[in-house]
Each structure stands twice: as structure tokens, then as C-alpha cells.
């Protein structure tokens, strides 16, 4: 270096300030004129500027898309969960709706049934079943508070279900006609043959005390008879499913399949004798 550092600094500063001030003043007085160096710089830089800008734009766009996708991903997860939840609710509501429809149909059938004279019906819901094979009974959700008493018949629109054997204020036990302890006075509809329908603990009941010489056919309808003290006459009990001959010399062995599907009870009706009616 020809100049010592302090003087060099001064010289550099003086030159630069002179130069820049000169350029500035020149441009101040000629604001509309674009300098040659500015033109060259702009032209030379244009492709680089374009490339840089497009790169940065794509970088920013990619980043924004990434952020957007993260947001979408979160939204997607949330919506998927909501969708699953709503589907679950929908299925539940559809099932519930179908249940209500079926229940309404069952209740409608129950209400439409011919209630025996001098009786009124209390529609009740089956809440549990006794465990077969030891016992064939059900529990219903009404008891003595609503006037349900032991001995009262329980029916559906298809026929006799059984009778009340135990009651508590809000619960009653119903002995089904298929229970071994069940006995119902019965009559065949066509032949008017009187007997006793006894439960066997299985799906079929046994119609007892029908003489051998009487004709009973499979499919014959068996009803409650007017001899019964518990049940109104004319309630369907079942249809003859099999007629045997080997048990006794005197009587036929007649199996009766209950008209009511006792395995699928949901609502039943308790028949209550109207006040003033003679038993």
C-alpha cells in the first residue's frame, strides 16, 4: 500500500462519498433517466432474479402446501372420527328405530287381540327368563302395584303364555305352559275333546287324558277349556304336533306345540278379571 492505513481510510471514504454523492445528485436532477450501470445490472440479473423468485415461490408454495396438508391431515382425522361416531349413532338410531317399529307392531297386535269378556289387559315387558331346563318361566316388569296377582293368565295375540305364580310390587314371575309344573284344562277345537295340557320342560306340551278311541290329528288346534278356573275359555294353547299310542292303553299320547313362540317373548299381556265379573 502506498498510503498508511489512516490516510488510506480517509482517501477511500472521500472517494466513496464523492462518488456516491455525485451519483445521487446526478440522479436527483435527472430522475427519469436510467443509468447505464443500472440497466446492465437489471438486465444481467433478470434471469437470476426470475430463477430465484420461481425457486422461492415453489419453496414457499411447497411449504404452505405442507402446512396446509398438515392442517388437512388433522381435519381429516377429526372428520374421520366424527364420521365414525355419526355412523355409529346412525346405526344405533336405525336399530333403535327398527326396535321401536317392531315393538309398535307387537304392541299393536297385542292391543288388537280379542280380550276375553270380563277381562282387561295389562301390557307388560318381559325382563328376563328362567334358565332352562330346570324351569320354564319369565319375569315381567309389572307387579302387585298395578294389580297383577298370582294365578292371572298371561297371553299374547297368539295364545296363552302361562300364568302368574309370584308377584312383588314391580315384578312378577310367569310360569310358562311348557314348565313341568304347568297344568291347563284344554279342549281340541275340532273334536271338542277335553284333557289337560301338561308342560314337559321341553318345547312341546303333553295333552293328557284323551281316550285312545278319539280321533286327534296333527295340526289340530288346542284351546283352553271352560272347565278351567284360572284361564278364560278359548285361548289358543297350541297345535298337535305328534300323536303317540304306546304310553297307556286308555289314553293317547298327544304332543302339542305351543302357538306362542315362548322363546322369543318381549311383550305380553296380563289378563285381569274385571271388577264384578264372576269367576
Amino acid at each position: 500500500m502506498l498510503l498508511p492505513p489512516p490516510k488510506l481510510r480517509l482517501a477511500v471514504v472521500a472517494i466513496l462519498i464523492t462518488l456516491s454523492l455525485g451519483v445521487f445528485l446526478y440522479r436527483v436532477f435527472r430522475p427519469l433517466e436510467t443509468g447505464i450501470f443500472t440497466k446492465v445490472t437489471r438486465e444481467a440479473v433478470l434471469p437470476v432474479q426470475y430463477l430465484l423468485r420461481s425457486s422461492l415461490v415453489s419453496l414457499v408454495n411447497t411449504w404452505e402446501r405442507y402446512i396446509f396438508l398438515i392442517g388437512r391431515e388433522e381435519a381429516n382425522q377429526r372428520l374421520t372420527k366424527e364420521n365414525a361416531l355419526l355412523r355409529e349413532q346412525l346405526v344405533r338410531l336405525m336399530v333403535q328405530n327398527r326396535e321401536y317399529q317392531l315393538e309398535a307392531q307387537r304392541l299393536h297386535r297385542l292391543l288388537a287381540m280379542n280380550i276375553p269378556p270380563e277381562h282387561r289387559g295389562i301390557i307388560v315387558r318381559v325382563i328376563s327368563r328362567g334358565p332352562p331346563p330346570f324351569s320354564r318361566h319369565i319375569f315381567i316388569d309389572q307387579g302387585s302395584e298395578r294389580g297383577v296377582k298370582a294365578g292371572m293368565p298371561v297371553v299374547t295375540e297368539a295364545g296363552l303364555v302361562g300364568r302368574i305364580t309370584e308377584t312383588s310390587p314391580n315384578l312378577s314371575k310367569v310360569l310358562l305352559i311348557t314348565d313341568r309344573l304347568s297344568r291347563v284344562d284344554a279342549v281340541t277345537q275340532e273334536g271338542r275333546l277335553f284333557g289337560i295340557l301338561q308342560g314337559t320342560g321341553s318345547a312341546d306340551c303333553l295333552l293328557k287324558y284323551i281316550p285312545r278311541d278319539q280321533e286327534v290329528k296333527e295340526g289340530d288346534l288346542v284351546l283352553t277349556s271352560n272347565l278351567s278356573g284360572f284361564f278364560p275359555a278359548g285361548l289358543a294353547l297350541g297345535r298337535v304336533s305328534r300323536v303317540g299310542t304306546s304310553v297307556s292303553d286308555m289314553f293317547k299320547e298327544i304332543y302339542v306345540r305351543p302357538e306362542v313362540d315362548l322363546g322369543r317373548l318381549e311383550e305380553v299381556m296380563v289378563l285381569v278379571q274385571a271388577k264384578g265379573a264372576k269367576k
Partner: protein
Amino acid sequence: MKYIFIAIYALVLILLQLSFWELITSEIIYLEFSLLLVIYAGLRMTAVQGGVLSYLLGFFFDSLAGGVPGLHGLLYVLIFSLSLFISRATAINSSTFVTLYVFFCVLGKGFLVVAYSNLVNEEAIWKDIWLIFLPQAAILALVSTYFFRLFTLFEGILSRERQG
């Protein structure tokens, strides 16, 4: 040869600064990193290299940013000159000094720009100092020490390349 590197260095910095400003910090705040380099050049570089770099930065800024022609060239040279004269002070390596010095330089530059605008356009835009230049000065002052380290690193790389 080294002045070509300096010119390219200045040009790339201005290009990046303008592009980033447009895309990222647009309309929010403009961070003039080139001013940091001017201050760095005054404080840490030799007079000739720093002076050339500062003027080129100002020139490229004026050319590419489309502002008042020659204004940044002059302001950068003034700031470089000031930095060069105080570079003898013992505390220039202190980060506190750098931070405060950058803050006042940026604010001072803002003051000059606004003063010029007022003079030429007869517009009272003094509030811009607080709205634009004060946040800019604060942010640049806070990041200045990190940028100084980056400039030192880059200067070292360029020196090695030139030697190689």
C-alpha cells in the same frame, strides 16, 4: 478478482433479500440485512474492500429495489464511513456494542430516508420511523451478532477460495 467476488456477493445478498422480503415478510416488516453487511464491512473489513462492497450493495439495492436512485448508495457509504472511523474503538468486538450500534445505525438510516422523503415529497411521514424503522432496527440489532458471525465465516470461505 476478489472485487468480482465482492460484487457477486453483494448482488446475491440483495437478490435474496428482495426475494425473501417479497415472498415472506412482504407488507409486514422489511429486514435490510444488506445494512448489517455494510456495518460489518465498516467494522471488520479493510477500507477498500469494505468500501467497494458497501457502495455495490447500495447500488444494487437502488437498481433492483427501484427506490430513489443513488440514495442507498450514498447512505450505505455514509454508514460504512462512520463504521470505519469508529472501528478503532476497543469495544467493537463486544456483542453489546454491535447490537446497540446496529440499532442506532438502522434507526439513523431510517431517519435520513424519511428526512429525504419529507424534503422531496413534502410529506409528513415521520410516523414511519416508529412504524417501520424502529421494529426493523430492533430486530436487526438482535440478530446482528449472529449475522456478523455468518459474515465472518463467509468471508473466511471466500478468502480460502481466492487463495486456493
